[in-house]
Each structure stands twice: as structure tokens, then as C-alpha cells.
């Protein structure tokens, strides 16, 4: 049964976790190209933290949440291929909510053997990781790649994928516990970052005979940028996809000229702007999952009332794997 109201978590203005407040809104209606999902689980991602803090161009007030899973309760008039009752995972907006209206382009039906938790856990991060190692930089067998935040949600998947594709993976993490997890997921070498990146630069230089890495996957941002430039090889690729430590200050592109380096900044949304693209990327990502080649690590499922704690935990860098909110 569809309620006329939706409980949500709302951000009235940018700020720290205290701005995340429960509210009740009218249940949204899907547009002709959307479906309305009753949300079971909403993924908690770094982008949520960035939006909440005002580090992303999302205007406030807003309802956070870019990903979720649940059941379709309403189908827009022009939508094909979905029906009421379908179990789905989806990317969209405002998923910290009982009901989310999402574009049918970014909805995937979950086969019976994939749980709603796994569906929610895998969608954004699984597709992001797959997109990064195929479209941002096509990882080749024998490549040396550096994966920052190797024990994070996307980091763990990148590590697994890099290993799967035959690359030598050097992961960076912040604690010994995370190092163990990164190694268990296919990182050949792990560097624990305590203060500064000299140890990483030294390690990469030794491991690659001074040549550097073919690619560096960096979602950390400001803290790692200079070091990432140092450790990428001549003609290598720097794949940036986040600002977890803060925005990289405005930079001259001449910094690339010393090594003929390629720089790219990828967001998953630009890999899936059409249904065809979405199906292709989702299909690739989920087939790794279904073959057991990728494992999603779930850190914790939080009750919706504990959303502030979820944000604190993710910001505190204590987590490994996926965080999400149980909505219904």
C-alpha cells in the first residue's frame, strides 16, 4: 500500500552532521519517465557528505541520497520494461526517503538471488569501479596501478578488479586493519599512510624500477594530488574521481607536461546518460558480482534515525566497505 506521505532525511542548509534532520513530505509522484520506488535501503556515499557540506553544486534545501534499492510502486506513463512489484536497485536523487522518484534510465531489476542489501550496496560503487578501470583508464595485464583509499567502498572494488584484470595493485590505507583487508582483496602491496606520502613515493619507485605507475586511482583529492603526480609514470594516467580530503586547488595543466601525463575526472553519471550505456555498464559490473569475482563488503546497516552517525563514521575514515540506511 502506498502512503501519501514520505518520511525523509532533509538538509535545510549546508553544514556538519547536525543539519541532517528527519522530516515528512508529500510522497513524490513519478514523472512520465520515472518510476516510484518504495525504498528499502539507501546507500551512504562520499558524495552525500560532499553535498551536505556544500562541496558539491547541489542547492539546499535538499534530500540526500543518490542510490538505493526497493520495490516499484508506481510506473510513469512512458516507462517501458518495469512494472509495479519489481525488485530494483537504482541511482537517482533523494533516496534517504520512504519513496524515491527515479529516472527509469538508471533502474535495474534485481534477480531473485541478489538481495536488496547487495543491490543497494553494489550499484553506485560497483558501476563506478567498473567504469574507472574500463572507460577512465583501461587497465591492462601487467600494469602497475595505485589505488588510494584501497579499503573504502570503491577502493576495495577497484583493488579486486585491478587484481582480476592482471594488474599489480599498490593500495594505500590509513590503518593496519585496513591493510589486512586490502591485501585480502587482491592488493599486492599496501602502503599505510601516516604522515605524508614519502613512503608511498619510495615504495612505488622501488617496485616499478623508478618508472612509476601506469595509472593512479585517486578519490582523496587535495592531500594526494602532488604525490599522485609524482608516482604516475611518463605517459601514464591520473584518474581522479573524488575530493574526500578536500578540493584540489586550481591547478595549471602545465603540471602534466613534465611526463606527458593524461588526467581525467570521472563521475559515474557521465558513463550512463542513456539507457543503453547504463545497461552496458551495469551489465558488466553485475556480471563480475554474479560470477563471484567481485565481493561487496558491507560495513554496516544503519537505522534511518542513525543517519548522523553514519555520516560521522564515513567522515571519520574508520569504515571499510559499504554503509547504508535501512529505510523500510
Amino acid at each position, binding site marked *: 500500500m502506498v502512503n501519501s506521505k514520505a518520511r525523509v532525511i532533509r538538509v535545510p542548509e549546508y553544514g556538519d552532521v547536525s543539519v541532517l534532520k528527519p522530516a515528512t513530505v508529500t510522497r513524490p509522484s513519478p514523472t512520465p519517465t520515472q518510476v516510484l520506488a518504495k525504498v528499502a535501503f539507501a546507500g551512504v556515499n562520499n558524495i552525500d557528505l560532499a553535498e551536505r557540506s556544500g562541496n558539491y553544486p547541489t542547492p539546499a534545501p535538499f534530500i540526500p541520497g543518490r542510490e538505493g534499492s526497493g520495490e516499484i510502486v508506481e510506473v510513469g506513463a512512458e516507462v517501458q520494461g518495469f512494472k509495479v512489484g519489481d525488485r530494483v536497485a537504482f541511482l537517482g536523487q533523494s533516496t534517504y526517503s520512504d519513496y524515491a522518484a527515479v529516472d527509469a534510465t538508471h533502474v535495474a531489476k534485481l534477480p531473485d538471488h541478489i538481495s536488496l542489501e547487495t543491490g543497494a550496496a553494489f550499484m553506485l560503487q560497483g558501476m563506478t569501479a567498473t567504469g574507472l578501470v574500463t572507460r577512465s583508464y583501461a587497465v591492462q595485464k601487467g600494469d602497475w596501478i595505485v589505488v588510494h583509499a584501497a579499503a573504502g567502498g570503491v577502493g576495495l572494488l577497484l583493488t579486486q578488479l585491478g587484481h582480476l584484470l592482471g594488474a599489480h595493485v599498490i593500495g594505500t590505507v590509513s590503518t593496519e586493519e585496513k591493510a589486512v583487508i586490502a591485501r585480502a582483496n587482491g592488493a599486492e602491496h599496501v602502503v599505510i599512510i601516516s604522515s605524508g606520502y614519502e613512503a608511498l613515493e619510495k615504495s612505488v619507485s622501488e617496485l616499478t624500477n623508478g618508472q612509476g605507475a601506469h595509472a593512479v586511482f585517486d578519490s582523496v583529492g587535495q592531500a594526494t594530488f602532488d604525490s599522485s603526480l609524482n608516482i604516475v609514470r611518463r605517459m601514464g594516467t591520473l584518474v581522479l574521481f573524488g575530493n574526500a580530503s578536500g578540493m584540489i586547488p586550481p591547478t595549471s*595543466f602545465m603540471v*602534466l607536461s613534465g611526463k606527458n601525463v593524461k588526467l581525467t575526472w570521472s563521475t559515474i553519471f557521465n558513463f550512463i546518460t542513456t539507457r543503453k550505456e547504463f545497461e552496458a555498464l551495469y551489465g558488466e559490473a553485475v556480471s563480475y558480482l554474479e560470477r563471484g569475482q567481485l565481493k561487496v563488503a558491507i560495513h554496516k546497516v544503519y537505522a534511518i534515525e542513525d543517519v548522523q552517525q553514519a555520516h560521522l563514521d564515513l567522515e571519520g575514515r574508520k569504515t571499510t566497505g559499504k554503509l547504508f540506511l535501512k529505510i523500510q
Partner: protein
Amino acid sequence: MVKSTIRAIRVDQNGDASVLKSTTIPHPTLQANQVLVKVAYSGINFSDVKQREGFYPIPVPFTAGGEGSGEIVELGPDVQHGFKVGDRVTFMTFGTYTDYAVVDTVRLGKLPDHVSFELGAAFLAQGLTAVALAELAYAIKKDDWVVIHAAAGGVGLLLTQLSHHLGANVIGVVSSDEKAALVRANGADHVVVIPANNSGSYEALDKKVKELTNGQGVHAVFDSIGQATFESSLEIVRRQGTLVLFGSTSGDIPPQKLTRLAAKNLKLTWVSLFLYTTTFEEFDVLYQRTLKLLDEGALKVQISKVYEFEDAKQAHLDLEERKTTGKLLLKVN
């Protein structure tokens, strides 16, 4: 008999074309893995202008020029790769506007008999640059849409020819109708004229690209202009496309928030031929590929003017005033 001093065009201090001075310097000596070449012709490149202006960290005084052709007259003791005295060669090194150039056996290639010294000096730096841009910086594929700025310049014309040869749809950008005709004759499918004294607006290019690509944009932009074109290049490249920067003739692009690339998941690179040719093997691969394209007629080098040695300054002025198309050479010996 070997003279104890030789002629050289020197830069004693960075500045405009008037700082180029014809003088004499001591006959050079060789390191173990170097050869001495009696220079027949020196190529003239925009990078010579930038060097003269002090854009690169090269201490003054230095001999101008980075490319040439001639005959090997002396070998260092450790020279490898089969080079001999008497070999006709083409090369890139620091200091080529001079009678004798010292060349490491890295960016050095033997000229086939059917390639003249003029052509040898004319095709090397720009030819290899065009090949590196089209095959290493962004691998052009059949049916790709590409925009080439300064399409009538030395590298621009060769890149236009090569892109056409690789089956791309080529949009060339030039500053005059005469240049447009030349670029069309060299394989550009479309040409946009942005006059030099324009207010700096590239709207005409943006509009043309949108029309031609159904609003999608181009797969790659090859941009040696820098500041004046950057915003336009960001605008006209397609989602997941590549921006290949390889010069800044209009001035440096100001520092940017790197997240700007995220709007379209863009790839951006800044490349120089120098860094694609750090070993003899790397150089040789590009060199042989370029020779082959020349032989096949896929690349045609147009030498537009040969300057006398004493007229190096005029060559720089002509290049800076954007009056030239194709390749300029300095006749040395």
C-alpha cells in the same frame, strides 16, 4: 681542415627576435655517446621562439634551434645503433642554427637516400609530433570527429593530413581564408576561420561543431593555442572526449579547478615530442612510422621558405606574425 671556431646564431638574453645574434663559437667537442653533424639545414619551429623568449628553463647564452639535417663528421667512442661518419642524418638536439651540431644518439635518424637534406630538416620535429599526437596522445580512429587548431601551421597541416588519412572527420581552425583553402586542400573536411584580430570569440567554432556533430561535440581537440581557446575547447569536446594540449602560443591557460573535467568525464593531456622520445628505441618507432607515412604520400611536408643563415631573425618575426604556413628552414651549409 677543421676550423677552430664555427658560426652560430646565439641567444645571450631572452627576449624578442632582435636578441638573435650571429656570431662565432668554439668548435664543439663530443661526449662518448654523441655524434658531430655538419649541419645542412636547420628546421625553424615555434618552440625556437618560446626558447628564445625564455619559456623553457634553458640558461643563456645558448645556440638557437632544435632540429636539423646534415652529415655525420665525427663519432664519440660509445656511439651505438650503427651510425658512421658520412651518414646523412636528421636529428633533434639543442643548438642547430650553427655549422656543427652535437647530437646524442637518441633523437637521431639516418635519412634514406631519396630524402633530401631539406626534407630531412623539414619533416622531423613536426612530423613526429603529428604522429605522436594522432597515435599516442589520442589514438585517432576512423569516423572520429576532431578539431585541429592552427591547422595551417607546421604541425597543424601534418596533423590534418594524418587525421584525414586515419579516416577522421577533420575540422580545421585557421585565421584567414587563404589558410582555409590550404587546409581544405590538405584533408580538412571543414574549416572555421577565426580572424586574428577577432575579439577572441570562438563562437563561430562552437556553433559549427554543434551543427556538424548533432550537438554531441568532437572526440578530440588538438590545441596548441592555450589561453585563447581553452574555454571553447572544453565546450566543443564531447562527453568522454579528449583535450590534447601541446602548446600555448596565445599564453598560458590559467589554473583550473580540475573538477571542470568531471562535467563531461574528459581526458586532458599536455604532451611534448621530447617526452615521447626519451630513448633511441622510442624515437626510432616514431621516426620509422613517419618516414613510412611520407613515403606513402599520406604526409606531405610543404616547405614555404628557406632563409639564409643571417636571416634567422626575419624567420622568427614571420613566424610570430602568423603570416606563415607550412615549414620554414634555415640554410646553414
